[in-house]
């Protein structure tokens, strides 16, 4: 069993008027086999949490710790975190022209596993994962995220999740901008990943819509850079009805 522990995490960003604190003491523990939903209004710091876990240079951790099976994640470089078993499905995947999807996937898989995948099984695995996510074959020869539609980018993030097979997946608003068919396809992918057992999912979302397809074991309401309330999936139902008005004073 694996554990991802976030303890009293404080994170700030550099602004023109000096550093601004976004995360104000986040405590959260995800064990493998669990799916946690983090829900919150815009600007509550949800994405900052996601990017801070992955080690984006824009965010500065001022105090607190993040441990993956007791290992200090914050001391690791971005690539070390990924190789340790953390995966961030990004809200806005970055375009990298001139690097093909197939080259990228093979390079990432080799880096994460520490050895090149066996060619025959790899080609088959990629094909199968693409088929399950309803991704066309010619996709592999396209430039990474370049000119992809919003839906294609999100499917491609989940394709990587399934192929790289990390210990913990952080999904940053993977549902945003998806139509209902794409949402179902992407949710199925996340559920397949979670069903491998021994996997943890941290699902960050603004809306409850995706929770019809991915059932969370725990729901955390995120407001003002920290967890304001925690509960089971019934908390999501309450948010569905009332929105975030109880937490922020105005409908969000």
């Amino acid at each position, binding site marked *: 069993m694996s554990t991802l522990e976030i303890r009293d995490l404080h994170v700030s960003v550099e602004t023109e008027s000096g550093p601004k604190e976004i995360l104000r003491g986040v405590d959260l523990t995800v064990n493998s086999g669990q799916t946690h939903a983090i829900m919150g209004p815009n600007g509550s710091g949800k994405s900052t949490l996601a990017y801070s876990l*992955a*080690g*984006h*240079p*824009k965010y500065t951790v001022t105090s607190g710790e993040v441990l993956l099976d007791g290992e200090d994640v914050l001391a690791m*470089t*971005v*690539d070390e*975190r*990924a*190789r340790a078993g953390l995966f*961030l499905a*990004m809200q806005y*995947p*970055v*375009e*990298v*022209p*001139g*690097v093909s999807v197939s*080259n*990228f996937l093979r*390079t*990432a898989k080799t*880096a*994460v596993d520490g050895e090149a995948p066996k060619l025959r099984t790899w080609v088959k695995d990629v094909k199968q994962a693409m088929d399950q996510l309803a991704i066309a074959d010619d996709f592999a020869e396209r*430039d*990474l*995220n*370049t000119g992809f539609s919003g839906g294609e980018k999100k499917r491609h993030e989940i394709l*990587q999740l399934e192929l*790289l097979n990390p210990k913990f997946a952080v999904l940053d608003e993977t549902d945003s901008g998806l139509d209902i068919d794409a949402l179902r396809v992407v949710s199925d992918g996340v559920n397949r990943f979670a069903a491998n057992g021994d996997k943890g999912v941290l699902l960050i979302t603004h809306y409850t819509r995706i929770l019809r397809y991915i059932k969370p074991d725990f729901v955390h309401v995120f407001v003002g850079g920290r967890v304001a309330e925690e509960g089971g999936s019934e908390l999501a139902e309450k948010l569905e009805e009332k929105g975030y008005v109880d937490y922020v004073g105005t409908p969000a």
Partner: protein
Amino acid sequence: MTTDTAQQAQHGLTEHSHGAGAPDHGGSAFDTVASFDVADHVVPRGREEEWRFTPMARLRGLHDDAPLDGHDYEVSVDADPKVVVETVEATDPRRGSSGYVPNDRVSARAWAEADKVLAITIPADVVTTKPTIVRLRGLSAEKAAAGHVVITAERFSQSVVVLEHEGSAAFADNVEIVTHDGARLTLVSLQDWADDAVHLSHHHVSVGRDAVIKHVVVSFGGDLVRTSVTLDYAAPGGDAELLGLYFADSGQHLEKRLFVDHNQPNCRSNVLYKGALQGAKAHTVWIGNVLIRPAAEGISTYELNRNLVLTDGARADSVPNLEIETGEIEGAGHASATGRFDDEQLFYLMARGIPADEARRLVVHGFFTELINKIGVPEIAERLIATVERELALGEGLPAAATTH
């Protein structure tokens, strides 16, 4: 723009601030002196708008009055059997058929001095199966030489022509590219000169009705290489893609100038030039001028220049200019960015477990591969990638550009 700052400019419209010092035709700021008579073009001194980036002392007098009567070069031709390649006299009517009139002294001098013309003709309706490759190999940079090439893509022909330059030379030339109705032509000019070469080249493209031209300039070698591409449309419906790739090493000056003249309705132009620089005093210049005349209704144009500064001490200048004289267009825009490789791209790759140095290598290779793929000529793609690899290997020992965040 300097090496240690990443700068971005993105506009749909920019005010032109570059008076050309030319006679006022009551028109565009891009107006320049156009004349076949060398005497009409005064010797530039380096203060002129068109020459302000160019190190005049390294021009070997090509812009002044150095004789252009050298013949220290060899030309070899590997043509598709359906393509006609001939050496003809300067009086041949194909010379001047693009409508080009020399717009600077070097071009006018090359026009006056070139005693032969290389004429490449793709006959009407011919679809070629292999690229026609003309290789010019300079044997010495001692004596300067002048050249003239006319490429004519007749009605509905479809072909690829590659002009390669290598060896040592001091060379001034004019290249006319004429596409007739419905022709599709890819023209690649590749400058892979030796370190001492100086090459000033003027290309003029005339785009026929519904013709599709892909014009590509690739510059690797040479001490100083300055290419000027002017393009206009002979009729409506033309489509021009102008691509450029350049890689400047220590001490090299590579200058890329473009002028797209939207003088006809319902045409399209798309410019993408990408450059990389490494080493002390590597200098690249990109000037992209686009003029949309009142007649050019329904056109769309976009130009983009990206420069990747790999080490400190290099300098990339990038100046896009867009002048719009009619609002009845589909779209017009430009963008220019110069800097180190993109930190967000690095983050994305590293977030998938790829180590920093490998991620950097992927991003840099991708920067070039994107453009090489767009050229779409497999016969030269492999060689271009190999040349990029060689250039990158040269730079490996140099200190990397400072981080920007």
